[in-house]
């Protein structure tokens, strides 16, 4: 339980974030200010926001729990599962999105392919974000109930009120700038438990020696790469093909919640730099969030549920004050996930559905009000649907699994859309739908096709491959868009065409 000073720290943090977020209300005059922060944001703030949006309160406990069970192999999700994809995003996708002046990924896909692809992608994301919000609220409420003894409803109402107020009024700028504070709090809180833990086990060398001495089942706990035939869900083949090539790229270049921040950068250089700055900060996440799980292997051996590792360490090791700081970090993780989800869902609805299909040509002020209204409605829906997670305990896993069905196919049409001008609208649409169908089929028949316990990495890879084959095949038999329509949407297409025309002119001049 928390002491007086811990409560003071948590309350000071919550009030500070609320005031900071609401301060940004005065900068919101147009829908562009609201959805893209006026395109004035610097790289350092976006980079920090990218990192903190990726880590929720539940991840603090869950990632440490996975590290407790499987070892450092879990860190691949933040290292190889982020850095290469963030570099690709920085130098290829983000500059093109930024130049195109789009608000959303579906909007880019709509321009590159057609409105069907745009609507399909937008609806998929809206549905999952809306469902996901209730689940985030509930999972975090359970965590705070376990750790602090707070009633679940209290955690949900506090988080929803504070996050809702600054997101509804301040838009993306408020989300990003509060994320900066949240990232700092999160890093300090996580560092506190890491340092205290390392001291108690005799430093890094003491930790390694003690874990390895615990028996043969711990011999791989410090191996980042596990054999292809490992019974765990993380064989190196799955890490490379499923995570590195598909899921990571789909997340960092195709996830609206992530990419929207970069679209709000003050110029193209800041957009690129934000991804690289975020990649650098990402390198520390496994150390701060997962390594406490490894320390818990020594301090609390034999736990049946690895997710108990961090709560026990907090209870047993942290002095008053630091405990409050760590709880502020939990809130930071929760609030950054909620504000990101709210803002991106409101943008998708307003720009890709409402403005495109329901009310075209309305005033900018109308869309600004709609954006704020939708943010509020999604928030209320999230709060009201949160208790459903208790009635359907496997809901979180189902939603995550369903979401993974779309990752490979979305990546396939993004890659072909960006790099192959011959890809047609029909190819993109059938690739998306066919890939999703293949994912669902492989998941349904996973016991027949796969040997590991949870083959989500392999399913992502093969659905990506399937979507690529369908996209290429259909594109070869259907009509592509005119090249001029694709300028600014396909990587270096205009530059290549200009160079080709110059070459032809030179050749003609020489022949004449």
């Amino acid at each position, binding site marked *: 339980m928390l002491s007086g000073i811990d409560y003071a720290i948590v309350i000071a943090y919550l009030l500070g974030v609320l005031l900071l977020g609401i301060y940004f209300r005065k900068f919101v005059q147009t829908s562009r200010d609201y959805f893209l922060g006026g395109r004035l944001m610097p790289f350092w703030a976006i980079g920090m926001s990218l990192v903190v949006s990726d880590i929720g309160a539940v991840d603090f406990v869950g990632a440490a729990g996975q590290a407790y069970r499987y070892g*450092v192999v879990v860190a691949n999700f933040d*290292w*190889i599962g982020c*850095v*290469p994809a963030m*570099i*690709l995003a*920085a*130098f290829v996708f983000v*500059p093109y999105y930024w130049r195109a002046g789009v608000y959303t990924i579906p909007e880019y896909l709509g321009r590159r392919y057609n409105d069907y692809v745009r609507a399909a992608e937008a609806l998929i994301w809206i549905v999952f974000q809306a469902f996901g919000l209730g689940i985030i609220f509930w999972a975090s409420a359970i965590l705070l109930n376990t750790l602090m003894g707070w009633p679940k409803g209290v955690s949900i109402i506090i988080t929803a009120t504070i996050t809702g107020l600054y997101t509804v009024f301040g838009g993306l700028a408020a989300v990003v700038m509060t994320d900066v504070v949240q990232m700092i709090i999160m890093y300090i809180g996580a560092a506190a438990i890491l340092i205290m833990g390392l001291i108690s086990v005799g430093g890094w060398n003491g930790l390694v020696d003690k874990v390895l001495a615990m028996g043969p089942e711990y011999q791989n706990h*410090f*191996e*980042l*790469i*596990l*054999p*292809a*035939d490992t019974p765990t869900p993380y*064989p*190196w*083949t*799955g890490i*490379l*093909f499923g995570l*590195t090539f598909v899921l990571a790229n789909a997340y960092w270049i195709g996830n609206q919640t992530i990419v929207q921040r970069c679209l709000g950068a003050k*110029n*193209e*250089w*800041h957009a*690129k*730099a934000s991804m*690289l*700055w975020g*990649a*650098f900060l990402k*390198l520390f996440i496994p150390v701060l969030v997962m390594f406490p799980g490894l320390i818990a292997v020594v301090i609390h051996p034999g736990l049946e549920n690895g997710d108990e590792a961090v709560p026990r360490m907090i209870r047993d090791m942290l002095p008053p004050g630091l405990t409050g700081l760590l709880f502020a970090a939990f809130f930071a993780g929760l609030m950054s996930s909620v504000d990101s989800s709210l803002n991106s869902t409101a943008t998708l609805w307003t720009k890709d559905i409402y403005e495109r299909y329901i009310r075209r040509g309305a005033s900018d002020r109308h869309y600004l009000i709609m954006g704020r209204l939708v943010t509020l409605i999604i928030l209320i829906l999230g709060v009201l649907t949160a208790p459903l997670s208790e009635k359907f305990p496997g809901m979180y896993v189902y939603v995550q699994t369903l979401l993974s069905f779309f990752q490979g196919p979305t990546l396939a049409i993004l890659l072909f859309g960006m790099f192959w001008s011959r890809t047609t609208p029909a190819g993109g649409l059938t690739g998306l739908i066919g890939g999703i169908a293949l994912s669902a089929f*492989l998941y349904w028949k996973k016991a027949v*096709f*796969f*040997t*590991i316990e949870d*083959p989500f990495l*392999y399913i992502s890879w*093969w659905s990506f491959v399937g979507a690529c084959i369908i996209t290429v095949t259909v594109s070869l038999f259907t009509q592509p868009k005119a090249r001029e329509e694709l300028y600014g949407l396909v990587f270096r297409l205009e530059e290549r065409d200009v160079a080709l025309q110059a070459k032809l002119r030179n050749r003609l001049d020489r022949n004449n």
Partner: protein
Amino acid sequence: MLNFDWLHSVSIGMAKGIIISLYVLIGVAVWFLKREYIVLDVESPRPWHNLKWWTTGVLTLIIAIYLYF
């Protein structure tokens, strides 16, 4: 086939080599990008605006991590 059985004989050392090669490849590819593309929108580019160095720094750190573990 779907379980990548054909890669089961690849050793851990070789797998790590493949992953580190991927990082090196990305690092080299970034250095082939034109400087004008990298510093686009920067009015008076200074050395720290060159994002190729940023990329090299991040990749060096992650290669060190994969060599250590």
